């Protein structure tokens, strides 16, 4: 699939905001407490056990195309050991990270069926970059808080939730960069941002091309015009979504591409 795999250093593909948020999380004593809690209760082992006993692992033998994407992505983002990859039955267009110290990737089956090889490479590459950036640990902490938050002191839980929310908001920037670097296809990267929000068919109609957002440009411009005048939008974003709005992601990706070109 890739004749010459280009290697990217962490400085290139990890977004500075993402790195800062994760550094801040680990500088917080609350994260040490939750990590000890996870370890004391064997939560990672349980998580891994349920996946291994319930979901089908995709291997080089059964899924050569996926495995090739996985190997190439690991090489691209210098991840030493190839993580395991599982399939999960769902119609949602999502891929996710699981585990903590031994992270693995989960791809939804309907998603796998509907995307082409290039998109598949982009998705897997973005997950590998996320592992390299330490997102698996962050996501695992988020999952633990959601599951057994009631057994953790309330103050600790609130401090952690705030730090983890900040991480979650910034993680997508690294993911977007990695998708772009792996595919070198701007249109596809932007389309992917719509991933689990609208169907691919609808996303195709935005006519996003290699170098511009096509029909979506109008919405994109409207958003920034509004954003500059109304600070309520920031508040709304915090309430409605744990991720930045798509125009903000596009803006950040554009800045990265320009910076990279320079």
């Amino acid at each position, binding site marked *: 699939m890739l004749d010459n795999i280009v290697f990217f250093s962490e400085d290139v593909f990890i977004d500075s905001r993402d790195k800062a948020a994760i550094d801040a999380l680990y500088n917080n004593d609350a994260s040490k407490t939750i990590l000890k809690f996870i370890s004391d209760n*064997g939560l990672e082992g349980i998580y891994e056990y*349920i996946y291994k006993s*319930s979901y*089908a692992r*995709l*291997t080089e033998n059964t899924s050569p195309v996926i495995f090739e994407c996985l190997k190439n992505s690991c090489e691209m983002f210098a991840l030493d050991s190839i993580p395991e990859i599982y399939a999960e039955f769902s119609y949602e267009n999502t891929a996710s990270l699981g585990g903590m110290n031994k992270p693995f990737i989960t791809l939804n089956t309907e998603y796998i*069926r509907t995307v082409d090889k290039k998109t598949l490479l982009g998705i897997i590459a973005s997950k590998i970059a996320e592992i390299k950036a330490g997102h698996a640990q962050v996501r695992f902490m988020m999952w633990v808080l959601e599951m057994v938050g009631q057994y953790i002191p309330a103050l600790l839980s609130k401090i952690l939730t705030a730090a983890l929310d900040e991480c979650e908001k910034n993680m997508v920037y690294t993911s977007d960069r990695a998708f772009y670097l792996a595919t070198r296809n701007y249109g596809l990267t932007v389309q992917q941002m719509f991933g689990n929000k609208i169907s691919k068919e609808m996303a195709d109609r935005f006519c996003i091309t290699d170098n511009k957002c096509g029909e979506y440009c109008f919405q994109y411009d409207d958003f920034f015009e509004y954003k500059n005048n109304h600070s309520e939008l920031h508040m709304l974003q915090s309430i409605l979504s744990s991720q930045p709005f798509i125009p903000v992601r596009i803006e950040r990706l554009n800045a990265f591409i320009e910076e990279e070109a320079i």
Partner: protein
Amino acid sequence: MRSFVHPLETKSRNLPIFNKAIKTLSGIAADIAAENVYLSTANRRYFPVTEELFPRLYGIYRNALDALEFKTEFPMFISNEYKIEASTSGGSDSYVITISSGAVDRLNDEELAALIGRELGHIGCGHMQYKQLFKAVKNIAGIAGKIGKAAAAGMLSALISWNKASEFTADRAGAVAAGSVQAVIGLIAAQNGIKEKSTYIDFDPYKDIDSEELPENIGFLGGMVFLEMMEETSCQYGITRIDELKKWASSSECRADYPQIYYRYASLTYNETFFNATDSEQLYNMHCYADNGDPGAAYSLGMLYLSGKNGLPENIPVGLEYIKSAALGEGKKAFYAIYAIGIFYRDGFNGIAQNLNSAWHMISYSAETCGRSASDALKCFAYDGTKLSLNTFEKVCGKTDVTAEADEKFRRLLWIPKSEQIYRADSIGKYAAAICLSGIFRKEEAGLPLFIPWEYILENCLSAEYYNGADFLYAGKTRIYPMERGDTAVSKTAVKIMQSLIKK
């Protein structure tokens, strides 16, 4: 008395801590009351499965009831749900089974029987009273305050262990209802979303954890997390359940109690005992399954008749008939049969005239499934001392270098179906062509696209006079693609393939 209850379930139920957990939780009646509400409202929310409304499904249900020796028929409903799932509600001999519309849409008859059989297994083995308590187990958090976390953790662990074993038992019931463990495995694969073979994934469960063991030292919190997470899992313990089923299907207990399941599984897995069957009971079963269209049994019997082994007389016409019938079936053994027929065509065999084109098609089509690579399959064409083994189609074509954009463009232009993989494609002026596994798709000027299968090209071989310095590449009198510009990707590859395949 024959039984399909998994021994781990019997063991779990006999543990004192399990009984203590049941006693403790029995005080919580709220969820059981909720079950009764469900019962009374199901017929207002869902479609009932009756003979008039859903004859196919009702027939499958009736057969499952008979196979599991149920005297009572329980109401069954279809819920509008994308997932492939079924559930049972109720208690005290009054149950309702609900299956999802996703299951009805996506499963074949045997898999549906397995799905329904699993639910009947839960009912028949008395799981429902425990399952209801299991739903109430979240209240164990409150109980932990009274009896202590260590005791609550012990109870949780016992319940989790029993719950897992109850799923093993239900799978066996599913196999009994469907008459095959493959149906349950197919169901689990479908629940994992990988039933149909896709371009990117196939199902090959692996095992690197002990199917009967749970993670070590599940504490109170670990147990709660375990339950929460399992509840969100679409196919609980799916992979370990497959492993357990396979063990059971090849066990002496299964052979004694459910011979039809044992022999059917054996016929599909090349079980040595089965393939070396000499006793009349086994041979009788093989004939029954083969005559009912089971490709595994038909293939095995066909091979035995061809070779005159295991007490069967050598009877080539009968053997060939069984092999042919296996080839018309589905599944892996059907591919084995197709491969075998390919070999007969290659060499010519007792009434089957040598036909290299048919041999090439059948062998290359089935080779991969039979555990041979395409190049191995083409080694079969090393006839008359001409060695073509290394020059295989795949070796010549290599992996496709057609970009996604070009792929889309040529598919539209040349009307190439999605089932075809394009290996090479290009266009010159008003000509366009693409090389695929089944043949070459090409278009000239304003004409309609034309598909030229390899079979035709093989019969009308390219010869040197056509492709050395000529304007066009030909197969017989059919023009394939311009040669005048020298190394066009399509012409060059087509010539290479032909050079590899044609007997020199």
